[in-house]
């Protein structure tokens, strides 16, 4: 029965992916993509990866969907022109053969995976006690493979630097996006007043529970970013000016604290990014709190885009 569910879910996911590619309208493609993200999150639950599922639903289904829908609506004017430039039959045939070859090869590889499967699950569980956290995925992210996570937090800030640098010179340091003016008595403003307390509580819960249950800084950060964007979209608060020192410190707080703890590990625990055993959980939670705030700010600002207006006094 559950196998039937998996097969049907897979078929729907692939059908939505095909629709993303073949839909006439760019807007329809983007909406299909958002739906695809939500259904893939369900697939992750079926693969016993609740942490990944939470990330997928918050980031791919939520934030990426919002980003792409905004882009598609601004590019709508040239949609018809682009649709007229369809590739020729020869190119399509070549692309179809290529994609069948790649997918077929990968599919055969999936069916020919070695048995018994190589796994680091035993090693991860065996080394869990010294880290003080109970969730093995969090332990991998923050202790066993902490270098990846450190570099990732830096990559998010670098992407934001890239987005900001697309602003024309005279708008550098200005506020991103247009000032939103939603109806103050409309449903959007109502939701933007009611939902933020719930969003903040859920984000903090995901962070705190992430030490022992599915959850963590990225999932919490994505939800915090979405809550913040809702308040901005409803016009209840303006987007921040990007020249603010407080904002910039907030953005680098996570990577900086992570780096500082990493270097301290050279003296305290004999290796870069190692934690002294007695302090491991406290240090991991402290870094996760800073990372939550930095990731939330960076993701929110990435979605708002480059600075577009300067405050006129």
């Amino acid at each position, binding site marked *: 029965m559950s*196998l039937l569910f*998996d*097969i049907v879910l*897979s078929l729907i*996911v692939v059908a939505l*992916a095909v629709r*993303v*590619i073949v839909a006439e309208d760019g807007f329809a493609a983007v909406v299909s993509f958002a739906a*695809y993200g939500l259904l893939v999150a369900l*697939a*992750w639950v079926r*693969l*016993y*990866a609740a942490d*990944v599922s939470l990330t997928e639903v918050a*980031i791919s289904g939520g*934030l*990426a969907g919002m*980003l*792409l829908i905004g*882009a598609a609506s601004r*590019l709508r004017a*040239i949609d018809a*022109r*682009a*649709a007229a*430039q*369809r*590739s020729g039959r020869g*190119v399509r045939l070549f*692309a*179809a053969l*290529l*994609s*069948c070859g*790649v*997918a077929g090869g*990968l*599919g055969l590889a*999936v*069916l020919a*995976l070695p048995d018994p*499967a*190589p796994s680091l699950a*035993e090693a*991860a*569980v065996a080394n869990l006690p010294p880290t003080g956290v109970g969730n*093995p*995925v969090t332990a*991998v992210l923050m202790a066993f*493979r902490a270098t990846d*996570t450190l570099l990732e937090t830096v990559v998010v800030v670098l*992407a934001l630097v890239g*987005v900001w640098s*697309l602003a024309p010179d005279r708008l550098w340091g200005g506020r991103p996006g247009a000032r939103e003016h939603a109806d103050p008595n409309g449903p959007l403003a109502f939701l933007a007043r009611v939902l933020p307390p719930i969003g903040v509580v859920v984000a903090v819960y995901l962070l705190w529970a992430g030490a022992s249950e599915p959850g963590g800084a*990225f999932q919490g950060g994505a939800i915090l970013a979405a809550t913040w964007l809702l308040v901005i979209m409803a016009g209840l608060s303006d987007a921040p000016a990007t020249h603010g020192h407080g904002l910039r410190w907030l953005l680098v707080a996570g990577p900086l604290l992570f780096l500082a703890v990493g270097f301290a590990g050279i003296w305290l625990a004999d290796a870069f990014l190692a934690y002294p055993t007695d302090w491991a959980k406290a240090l991991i939670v402290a870094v996760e709190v800073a990372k939550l705030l930095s990731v939330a700010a960076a*993701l929110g600002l*990435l979605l708002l*885009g*480059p600075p577009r207006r300067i405050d006129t006094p």
Partner: protein
Amino acid sequence: MTAAEIFGLCGAALVGVGVYGLVIAPEPLRKLLAFNLLGGGIFLLFGAVARRGAGAGLGGDPVPQALVITGLVVAVAATALAVALLLRLFEASGDVSLRNDPPPAPEPES
């Protein structure tokens, strides 16, 4: 057939759809979506491998799962950068085609 095999095949199919879209789609936004589908397929392959590595009381190997979480965040950051570049190109030239035709004369920045 196990769930790992089904979703592994689903991931392989998604990679195929992504490759097809990447080649044929004329609009850069569609290419970006196709690239994300390709990446999503790879992540699902990771998920299938993680599920097969279940053990020690866990439903899946936590190492590939953690790598996928890292990958998802990096993918959305890269997508946001690509969208910003695309919208800037649209603002500057009024078109975003990737065809080889001569580009329209760029408008001076206001």
